[in-house]
């Protein structure tokens, strides 16, 4: 009999499975659950993108592409990043097409981390940075960002955790789950702290298209002091509603992208070919679709934020992504307690803030990738719940 506890990698077995998994499993067994849990768009991939995928299959484009990804696609990515975020990457050697933004994050951290290197991770944030850092042999250093700072990482917070082992700073903005964004001034403060160090920045900009102030997202790499140290990660999932196509990209200085591509070449070979052809269409011709979806998200966002505040759950305005992050502190419950009771008594599924780090305690994440009617129904159930627990 094999003792799997002994044969499996200890770093991996030490990673706790997400508590949320269990929670979603419970929700899945219940009827009539109304969920605000899903973190992916409810829109179909725009038809012209799907058609481009289909046509590429009809033309027999079913082989591997270059390790880096199709050059036509990399050229479009380069144009797109310059057009939208004023950051210039060379299609020939500064862009790698990956299997979603997730792969880009994994590869980038693996390419950077030596055993024992520290990775600064602002939380509450998306769940992958900590485990991937550990698997790559790094040490996660958590910065608990604060609601009163709109969940931005501040220069002082950053300065206080930098050591001579610091290798990477992760900038996960616009933020899942808080909806926080970093404005240009905020980033310039961060740049001052990093100035003169060799600390690299991994900027996860998967929600870059989803900002609501009317001003475009500020990509750190577009600012002085960032480009040479920044790996920009983005992808097609959220902006173009292409989650299942699994396509993203990593951009950065050539020497870094060269090494990332080395790992990608052995682990993945090349990203899905059909998706790459579809993505060319997305970048070339779908600005209007993106605009339409953004407008819908914005209406839902206003609805859900006003709704939470109205029923007594204080909710800051999320400036980006598609999540509201209201406080449930007024109920006196922990986040998990609140979510579990809400699920059982009103069949509404939301995610406890603690799933995104300890600093998420006292908050819940509610996705607004749902119709306005769906959101209104969920809010009215939450309102009933709040009345009953009073």
């Amino acid at each position, binding site marked *: 009999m094999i003792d799997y506890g002994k044969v499996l990698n200890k770093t991996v077995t030490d990673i706790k499975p*997400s508590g*949320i*998994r269990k929670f*979603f499993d419970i*929700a*899945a067994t219940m009827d009539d659950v109304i*969920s605000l*849990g*899903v*973190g*992916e768009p*409810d829109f179909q991939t725009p038809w012209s993108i799907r058609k481009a995928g289909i046509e590429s299959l009809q033309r027999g484009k079913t082989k591997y592409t270059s390790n880096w990804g199709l050059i036509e696609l990399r050229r479009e990515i380069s144009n797109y990043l310059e057009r939208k975020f004023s950051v210039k990457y060379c299609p020939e050697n500064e862009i790698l097409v990956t299997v979603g933004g997730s792969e880009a994050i994994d590869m980038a951290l693996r390419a950077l981390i030596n055993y024992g290197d520290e990775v600064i991770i602002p939380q509450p944030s*998306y*769940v992958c940075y900590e485990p991937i850092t550990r698997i790559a042999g790094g040490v996660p250093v958590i910065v608990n960002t604060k609601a009163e700072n709109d969940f931005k990482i501040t220069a002082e917070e950053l300065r206080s955790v930098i050591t001579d082992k610091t290798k990477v700073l992760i900038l996960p903005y616009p933020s*899942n789950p808080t909806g926080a964004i970093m404005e240009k001034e905020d980033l310039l403060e961060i740049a001052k702290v990093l100035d003169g160090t060799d600390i690299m920045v991994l900027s996860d900009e998967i929600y870059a298209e989803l900002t609501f102030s009317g001003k475009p997202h500020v990509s750190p790499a577009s600012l002085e002091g960032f480009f040479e140290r920044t790996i920009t990660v983005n992808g097609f999932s959220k902006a173009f509603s292409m989650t299942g196509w699994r396509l993203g990209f990593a951009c950065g200085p050539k020497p870094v992208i060269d090494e990332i591509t080395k790992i990608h070449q052995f682990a993945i070979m090349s990203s899905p070919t059909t998706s790459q052809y579809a993505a060319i269409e997305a970048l070339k011709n779908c600005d209007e679709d993106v605009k339409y979806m953004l407008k819908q998200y914005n*209406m*839902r966002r*206003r*609805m859900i934020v*006003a709704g939470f505040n109205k029923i007594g759950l204080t909710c800051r305005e999320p400036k980006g992504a598609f999540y509201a992050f209201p406080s449930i502190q007024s109920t006196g419950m922990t986040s998990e307690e609140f979510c579990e009771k809400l699920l059982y008594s009103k069949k509404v599924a939301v*995610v406890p803030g603690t*799933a995104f780090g300890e600093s998420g305690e006292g908050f819940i994440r509610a996705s607004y990738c749902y119709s*306005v*009617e769906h959101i*209104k129904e969920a809010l009215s159930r939450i309102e009933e719940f709040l009345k009953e627990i009073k």
Partner: protein
Amino acid sequence: MKYEVLKLLSQNAKYSPEDISTMLGITEAEVVDIISELEKDNVIRGYKAVIDWEKLDGAYVSAIVELNVVPKAGLGFEEVAEKIMKYREVEAVYLMSGDYDLNIIVKGKTLQDIAWFVAKELATIDSVTSTATHFVMRRYKDMDVELITGVNDDRGQLFV
């Protein structure tokens, strides 16, 4: 903003001014003003429920009737169109480009009702030279609303 308000009301006439003001980021008073102006100007002509009559057995049959009409000098198609739209059985009257002139949507309780209505009322109008009646067999989408069960939310319950 007028256009935005109309778009929302065309999606759901039950949105309250409060809902609309929240979604568009304007005040409730502004929404109320815009709506009353649109009502006054007859841009908004009414608020009706979207009903799936097929859910009620035998409650509703409808047909599209194509009419060819000899237009009257000086009046064109207006006279006959106005006459036809007065019928209780007529739900819609459109002047068409192409092979025929007027497109009429007729409703009735039974196929027989509609057949009689076309034969006795529409076909006998002086200027009508021919009719072609097409019964509606099934409604998949009406007034922008999908009536057959749409796609379920098949998003994986992944934790992202």
